[in-house]
């Protein structure tokens, strides 16, 4: 069976995503992305947080063919649970390992 091609995006948040609230942040991020992408595009993009890499950084996994839509959706998200937030996409790659090695702005 063919596996869907994925893209991993490294994201910096303007406010910390602290440990006890991570699950909540995750579900609120998904609903904010659904609001921006629309239900059908959200289903196709299928965004999932793959890894938290720091107190304000994480890696988001999205479908390769919806990568650009996902970046625009993340740019449009300006608040999560009523609090202002900025989500900055730093770099992206086909694997998490390559993402950790790759310099920014790719």
């Amino acid at each position, binding site marked *: 069976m063919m596996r869907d091609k994925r893209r991993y995006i490294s994201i*910096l948040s*303007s406010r910390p995503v602290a440990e006890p609230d991570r699950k909540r942040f995750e579900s609120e991020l998904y609903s904010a992305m659904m609001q921006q992408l629309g239900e059908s595009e959200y289903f196709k993009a299928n965004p999932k947080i793959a890894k938290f890499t720091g107190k304000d950084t994480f890696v988001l996994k999205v479908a390769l063919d919806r990568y*650009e839509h996902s*970046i*625009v959706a*993340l*740019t*449009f998200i*300006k608040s999560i649970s009523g609090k*202002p*937030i*900025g989500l*900055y*996409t*730093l*770099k*992206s790659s086909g694997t998490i390992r390559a993402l950790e090695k790759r310099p*920014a*702005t*790719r």
Partner: protein
Amino acid sequence: MQFYDLAHPTALHGYLWKQLGFKRIAAAGTDVKTSLPGTRGIEGSICVGPAGEPLNAAAKQSPRAIIISDSRIDRKLLDTVKARNLILCIPFDRILSSQGLRRSSTIYLTSRLAKYAIKRGIRVSFVSMAGSEEALCSPVQLVELAKLLGVKEEYARNSVSVTNAELIE
């Protein structure tokens, strides 16, 4: 490739710009002079105003760049911009601060302006013009927003790098 951006001083605290991967984010009004049509000090500044005769007159006074605040296509104004080799600066702040149908209409108008200007051979620069830290964008996001307007990736990357450098330095 090095990337540059322009934002309001209120968005620039600490070293976030470095984390985002920019070589520099200039502060509008302090690092780079901004002006309004019909006022003094237009020369060398970024002149911001709605399309029309006042902005056209300002474009003839050698500003560094112009921002058409209502994103309307004014052929006479764009002829002046082209003839004087000025930069047409497209800020994303209005797209990012609006929502729903208003955002959609802003994207449509901005997209028409950007595509028309590029077709005419005008140098177009894409900047965030963020008013707060949350409104800042990384270079990847600036390029993707430019692509959303219908600009080719290569042009968008070159604009955020070379044209923006020329705009702020």
